[in-house]
C-alpha cells in the first residue's frame, strides 16, 4: 500500500492557515495586554457630596494613567469631575467621523470609580472654521454642526453623563477665537446646543455661562465683565436655554470668606452671580462651580502661601456645603496635569504628574473623611 505524500499546494495552505492563526493570536495578546481592566464598581466615601475637581485627561494617552487619576480623585473624596471633551478630537476631519475611543475610555473609568461627570464641550475642528482661526473660533454658520456634536455626545453617554457645559469662558476674547466677545452670539450658540442636547436626552442638564471672573472695563479688547456678560445673556433671552449656570470662582489672594464686591475678583463673587440670577427670575436654578482655586506658586502675584491654600480650599468646600444651598458642586482647577508645565499653573494641582499626592491632596482627603487637618504647630 503506498502512502500518498501531501502536495505542495496543501502544505502551502496549512502554512498560510498557521500564519493567519499566529497573526490573530498576536493581535489578541497585544490588545489584551494594552487594555487596562476597569475593575470593580467603586463608590465615593465623603462627608461632602458637593466636592469636585476639574481633571485634565484630554491629553492623557495612557489608559492606566486615566484610571489612576480617577482612582485618586475618588480616594480624595471628590464625587464630581469636570472634564473636557473636545469636538475636534472626535470629528477631526469631517462631520460624524466619530473618534470616540478616548472619551469612551475616560467615561468608562469615571463610571467605575463612582464619579459623576460634568462634560465640557467645545474646541472646533478645522473643517468647521476658517483656516486662520484658532479652535476656539466658531461662527454662526457652524452652530448647527456643533449642535450635532452635542447631540451625538449626549446620546452616546445618556446613561453615564447627565450634565454638560456649553463652551468655556465666552466672555474672554481669547476663548472666543480672538474676536470681540458677543453675549448675543453666545446665547444663540447656547440655544442651538441646548435644543439638540434635549433632543438626545430630555433629562440632561445643560449648563451655560462658565464665565471667567474679570473686571474688564466696557469696550475692553480682552473681554467683558462676567456680571455684565451674564446680564446681556439674560437680555438676549438666554434663560430658557440653560438648566443651571456654570461659574468660575478663583480666590486670588483672598480667603473664601472675603466679602463679595463688584470691583473684586474673589471666591465670594459667586454670590453676585447668584444675585443676578435671582434678579432675572432664575433663582430656582442651581449654580455649578466648575472651576475654582487658589495657587501657591512662590512668586506669582495672585498666589498665596501653601498653608493658606490648604485652609482656603477646605473652607471653600465647607462653605459651599453649609452656606450655599443653591450651589450643587465645587470643582477645583486642576487635579493633575499629564506633564509638568513648569509655570505657576503647576501650583494649582493636587497631584504631581507622577501621581505623588501633594500635601493639599492629603488634607482635603482628611476633610472628606471628617478628620482634623494635620495643621501647623503639631506633629503629623
Amino acid at each position, binding site marked *: 500500500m503506498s502512502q500518498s505524500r501531501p502536495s505542495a499546494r496543501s502544505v502551502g495552505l496549512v502554512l498560510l492557515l498557521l500564519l493567519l492563526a499566529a497573526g490573530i493570536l498576536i493581535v489578541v495578546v497585544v490588545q489584551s495586554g494594552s487594555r487596562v481592566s476597569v475593575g470593580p464598581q467603586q463608590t465615593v466615601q465623603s462627608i461632602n457630596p458637593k466636592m469636585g475637581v476639574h481633571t485634565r485627561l484630554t491629553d492623557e494617552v495612557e489608559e492606566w494613567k486615566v484610571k489612576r487619576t480617577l482612582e485618586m480623585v475618588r480616594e480624595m473624596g471628590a464625587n464630581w469631575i469636570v472634564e473636557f471633551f473636545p469636538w475636534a478630537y472626535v470629528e477631526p476631519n469631517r462631520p460624524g467621523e466619530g473618534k470616540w475611543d478616548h472619551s469612551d475610555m475616560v467615561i468608562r473609568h469615571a463610571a467605575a470609580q463612582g464619579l459623576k461627570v460634568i462634560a465640557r464641550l467645545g474646541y472646533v475642528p478645522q473643517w468647521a472654521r476658517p483656516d486662520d482661526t484658532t479652535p476656539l473660533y466658531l461662527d454662526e454658520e457652524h452652530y448647527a454642526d456643533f449642535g450635532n456634536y452635542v447631540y451625538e455626545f449626549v446620546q452616546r453617554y445618556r446613561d453615564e453623563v447627565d450634565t454638560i457645559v456649553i463652551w468655556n469662558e465666552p466672555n474672554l476674547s481669547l476663548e472666543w477665537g480672538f474676536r470681540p466677545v458677543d453675549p448675543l452670539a453666545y446665547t444663540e450658540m447656547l440655544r442651538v446646543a441646548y435644543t439638540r442636547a434635549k433632543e438626545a436626552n430630555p433629562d440632561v442638564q445643560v449648563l451655560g455661562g462658565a464665565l471667567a471672573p474679570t473686571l474688564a472695563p466696557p469696550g475692553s479688547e480682552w473681554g467683558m465683565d462676567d456680571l455684565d456678560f451674564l446680564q446681556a445673556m439674560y437680555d438676549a433671552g438666554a434663560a430658557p436655554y440653560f438648566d443651571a449656570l456654570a461659574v468660575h470662582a478663583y480666590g486670588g489672594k483672598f480667603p473664601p470668606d472675603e466679602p463679595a464686591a463688584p470691583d473684586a475678583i474673589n471666591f465670594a463673587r459667586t454670590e453676585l452671580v447668584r444675585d443676578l440670577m435671582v434678579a432675572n427670575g432664575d433663582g430656582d436654578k442651581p449654580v455649578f462651580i466648575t472651576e475654582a482655586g487658589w495657587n501657591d506658586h512662590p512668586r506669582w*502675584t495672585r498666589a498665596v502661601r501653601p498653608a493658606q491654600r490648604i485652609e482656603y480650599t477646605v473652607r471653600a468646600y465647607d462653605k459651599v456645603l453649609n452656606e450655599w444651598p443653591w450651589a450643587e458642586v465645587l470643582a477645583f482647577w486642576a487635579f493633575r496635569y499629564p506633564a509638568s508645565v513648569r509655570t505657576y499653573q503647576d501650583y494649582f494641582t493636587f497631584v*504631581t504628574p507622577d501621581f*505623588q499626592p501633594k500635601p493639599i491632596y492629603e488634607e482635603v482627603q482628611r476633610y472628606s473623611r471628617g478628620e482634623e487637618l494635620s495643621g501647623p504647630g503639631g506633629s503629623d
Partner: protein
Amino acid sequence: MRVELKRKQWLLVVGGTVLLLALVLILWRTVALPRDHFWENIEQTGVWRVAMDPSFPPFESLDPEGRPVGYDVDLARAIAARWGVEASIEGVGFDGLVDAVWAGSVDTALSALPYQPQFSQNVAFSRPYFEAGLMLVAAPDRPELNSLDDLSGMRVAVEWGSEGDLQARALRRESPDVIILPQETAQQALQVVADGDADAALVDRISALQFPGSGQLRLVEEPIVSDPYVLVMPRKTPILQAQVDEALQALQEDGTLAALQARWFGGSQ
C-alpha cells in the same frame, strides 16, 4: 632658462591658489558664519536690554526712589561691566518675561527664572547661576544628616503644604518613624530646628539663606530637588549665549556670585 620658467609658473599657480583659498575663507566667514543681531546691537549701542519683574526681593525689587535693586540687578551690571556695556533694566511682569524674550523686545530676561525646558523651542537658556531648590537644613548637633535617607526616626520641620512637606510625607510612606512637624512658614520651620525642637528642616534654599539664624544651622549643599535659576535669551543668538555663559563662569570663578549671595542674603561668602 627653461627650468627657471617652469619654477616661476609653479610659484604663480601655488601662490594664486593660496590667495584664492584665503579669499574664499574670508568670504565664508563673513557670509556663512551665524549672525547674532542681538549681540551686534548690544555692541553697537553699548546697551544690554534686560527684563525683570522687580517684585521678588532680594533678587529684584524697587528701592524707595523707584530704582531696581537686588541680586539679579547686581548680576546684570556685573555681566555688562565685563562686556564694557550698560545694563538697561526694563520692567516686565513675571508672566510676560519669556514672551518678551521670544518677541525680541528685550535681549535677555534675568529675574530669578527657573529653567523651563518646555520653552526650549522658543528661547535659549544660560547655565545656572543660582540654586533655589529644596534643601536639607540640619541642626548643628546632627552632623550625620546629609540626605533624605538619613531622616529615618528624625523630627523633620516643614512649611505646611510646601514641596518640603510633600517630600517628607513621601519619605514617611517608606519610613513610618519619620516625625513631620508642619509649620505655617519656612522661617518657622527653620526656627524649630534652631530651637532644638526638630532635627532637620526641608525648605527651599532661598528661605534657608534668608533665615536670620542660618549661621546656627547646617545647610546641606546638595539639593533634594534642584530648581536652578537661569538667564533667558532669544534662540538665534549664539554669540550672546556664549558671552553670557562665559561671563557667568568667570563671575563664579572670581567669587562675584558668592559675594552677591553674601550681600543679598547675609552670611559669609
